[in-house]
């Protein structure tokens, strides 16, 4: 079975205002198998977020190719990349990025609104996900009324709503206490697994990284496979 996501010799350079060149990623080559869970570890600034951004088509590599479901993202125009992201990827962010003026349920439904999905089935699925993540009673609450752990669970529901093939999570527990972090991560892994989604997540935590089937380590932009 072909990999869901592949990095082929991917490098990403940034130029500072002073003209200096920063290597966020250096010649990364790796693959993520369908249905697997991969944790990316590394220090701050090691390139974890850059790797995830490239995988999501939010950023473009300076060289090399990012291949999602057999298609090279960098060869696609912006609109096509956007649609790939919409239809194939679910994103979970460290800082949740929920819309404060919407309820928990409405936040979960945002991807459906973006894609123009039918309201009824989408809402049914959103409620099921919220239920699955223990938030059935908070569906109508505004997100400002939720705790950090609850917010991140809402964000997980949002990421999974449209049954993406790939879920990318950037430090999904970085803004939570240990207990909540552990719980959210376990739920994310479990539900992604139930959905058959592939999960690639970045984390500082060795413990949380240990929950994944595969671990990658980034050091100054160089990818090393961890044992």
């Amino acid at each position, binding site marked *: 079975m072909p990999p869901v996501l592949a990095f082929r010799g991917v490098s990403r350079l940034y130029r500072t205002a002073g003209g200096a060149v920063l290597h966020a990623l250096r010649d990364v080559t790796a693959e993520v198998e369908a249905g697997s869970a991969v944790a990316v570890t590394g220090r701050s600034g090691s390139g974890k977020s850059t790797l995830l951004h490239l995988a999501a088509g939010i950023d473009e590599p300076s060289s090399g190719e990012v291949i999602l479901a057999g298609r090279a993202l960098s060869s696609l125009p912006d609109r096509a990349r*956007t649609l790939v*992201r919409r239809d194939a990827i679910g994103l979970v*962010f460290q800082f949740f*990025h*929920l819309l404060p*003026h919407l309820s928990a349920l409405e936040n979960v439904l945002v991807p459906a*609104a*973006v894609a*123009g999905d*039918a309201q009824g089935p989408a809402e049914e699925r959103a409620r099921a996900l919220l239920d699955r993540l223990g938030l059935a009673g908070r569906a109508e609450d505004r997100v400002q009324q939720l705790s950090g752990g609850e917010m991140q669970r809402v964000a997980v529901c949002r990421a999974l709503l449209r049954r993406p093939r790939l879920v990318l999570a950037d430090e999904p527990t970085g803004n939570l206490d240990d207990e909540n972090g552990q719980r959210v991560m376990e739920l994310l892994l479990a539900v992604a697994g139930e959905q058959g989604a592939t999960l690639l997540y970045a984390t500082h935590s060795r413990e949380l990284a240990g929950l994944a089937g595969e671990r990658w380590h980034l050091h100054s932009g160089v990818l090393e496979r961890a044992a």
Partner: protein
Amino acid sequence: MRTALLRAAGKELRASRALVLLSVAGVALGVASVLSIQILNRGALGAFEGGVRAVSGEADLSILGWTGRLPEDLLPEVLGTPGVGAAVPLQRVEVAVEGRPGPFDLAGGPAAPQAAGRTGRGSSASPSTLTLEVVGADLLAPLRLPWTLPRGGVAAALGEPGWVAVSPGIAAEAGWRVGDAVAVSSGSRRVVLRIGALVDFQRIAPLASRRLAVMDLAQVQALLGTPGVLHQIDVLAADPGGAAALADRLQARLGERARVTTPAQRTVEAEGLLSAFRLNLTALSLVSLLVGGFLVYAATQAALARRREELGLLRCVGATRGQVLGLVLAEVGALGALGTAAGIPLGWLAARANAGAVSGTLRSLYLLEGIERVELTPGLVALAVAVGVGGAVVAGVAPALDAARRDPLALLSSVTQQEAAEAGAGWLLAAGGALLAGAAVVSAATARWPPSGFVLAAGIVAAAPLAAPAALRVLARVPVPRRLGVRWGLRTLGARLPSAAVAAGAVAVAVAMLAGITIMVASFRTTVVRWLGATLRADVYVTTPSWRRGRSEATLSPRVLDALGRAPGVVATDLLRQLAGYAGARRVSIAGVEAGLPAAEGRVALASGDPHTALRLLREGAVLISEPLARKAGLAPGGSLSLRTADGERGFPIAGVYYDYGAEQGAVLMDLRTFAGAFGPGPPTNAALYLAPGVDPEAVAAWVRAALPGDAVLVRSNRTLRAEVLDVFEQTFAVTRLLQAMGLVIAVAGIALSLLVQARERAGELALYRALGATRGQLFRVFLGRGVGLAGFGLAVGWPAGAGLALVLVRAVNPAFFGWSLRLDWPLATLAGQGAAVLLAAALASVHPGVRASRTPAAELSRDAI
């Protein structure tokens, strides 16, 4: 520290070019509105004052007739009064120049029925006839005249028939040179004048009319005016310090036959005449400034939201509250200064563009001189600076104080403005309601005070924007749309209260003004059309090109009257005489008409009183008074009107009050015989012909013109006259429309500003949508929805407020301030068209912010992005 703070402010201004540009545009348009109106107001008074100075020069006093005329034998009495150093007799006659269009001459006159020979005054020259005001002076008088004639000029002026000196300005405009013959008419008389010299009146008084011309008094009396009659005697006191005492002595000696005034008193009279007109325009222009203030407020708020953390850091490292306040106000002041710099030339241009329309109103409605030139004085520049910079600082004070008041941690914290705005929406709504209720109470308590209606109108205008946040908040309860697009943008407006409410409030104010004034003007127009229909019954109207401003010299000659009597198909002729007189100290237009004509009562629309009885009383020596006069002087049928007649003050019973929309200061109507008894015999100034059924009015008009080839007459059919009246009506409101448009442009700029703020402040949210797979087109549509939604909310709040405003304008302000009652009309199609235009303008204003928003990269997501 101060340098660093100022540098930060400069950086902020440079970094937010689009926001700065819109704020500056808002201030500029607000300043331009106020400044243009002040320039026009000043020009209107300046033209009058300039005319006084150019004609009367160093004279300490002017003696004027209560009925416009003075008998010549008054001059020896004046000269014989102790303390009179010199006296110059003057006769001033308006003449129409044949075949010359006039640039500002719009004196077609909206008071057409008067021109028709019935109610008071009104239409005169065709809308484009150039007229001169010829001043006949005793050129040998011992008083030094304010102007000098060229060498040999006096001898020529006295000796050459038709010798006239004109201003270089009018000569250049008309292409005249010394020696040229110019055909003019005074009443139906045609006369050829010869340009004898050029006299620069505007060197003496820059705002004086270039239409002034000078002739020898005797020549004016013989050729253009009336022999033995004067219009004015200018007096120089022998003792310059004794002018006041001399005025008293002269007044005591002349008694009821004349009034003695100083140049300053005459200017004050003109100010009084124009006060309502000027206040009306000033109030309207201030609304544009208010809407501009909204923009500055919004821009300041946006800048502070963006720099909240920076300000918090500054406070942490020791910046005082005063320094933060100073920094913000300095920024706002800079915006105001930039806006003022742009607004001053814009205001001047707007004034220049509207001088013609305002001049038309001044001449036709107030019988004053039109604006000669628009002048930007240092005082007006200072006013513009005060209004622009001061207004901007006032608009920025609230957000600046809010930022300065907060402690450093609060500035650094994540407490959002949104929360504060949501909490404040209810309070603002309550405050708006309280403001409106307070204004209503004050207005009701001071109902007899004419400006009380303005208090209520101001309350409505102020309350409208305060309702905007609460109205927007309702959106948050609307279900989230199924798709990310226009409706989504609309739904999420409530989530953007701080910037959205200000923009919606600005649109609401502008729409309220737009709708209110539109309804008022439509009501006025409908009223005038109905009034014309009810009172304009004759088939053909005859007047002269120079008939204007109540000058009784512009009369129809016996030959003209004879021809009219012979015109085919004429069954009745209605004659009118009119003059500008005084009811007590109030200047009014007085007209004499044929009250004995069959069915005469059908030609006057009475506001109170029985038409049959009123006409009978009119024939018996009573008078009808116009509605504005009745309201302003507190008169009613059954009472008595005191008029200054040729024989002194005399009381006339009031038979009724009639509708009149031509003379704001008031008008009086009496039978021709009563008129002759009060003011002396004389020829008519206008005639109206009633034709037998089936006779073509245009054919009769053509017949009259053909029968009078040597006479200056204007012959118009009923239909033509009506069209001219309505044309002038539209001109009267041209400035109003410009001010409405400026207010609306500022409001639409406010929408663009609000959306730009959102595109910038909410980049995180946009990036999230992009990260979740939203296309650029979707984000553009979200912004389009927000822009159109803001306009929609502006309309939703502004329309009811506009309807309320219209009610106040129609039911309270117009009757109390101008004296006329209007029939309320709701121009729904026009309002709907305006609404569509506002929505379209908002959609266009959303394009640039929408494009910018759509370019937000998904990678923009950061920790504090949402």
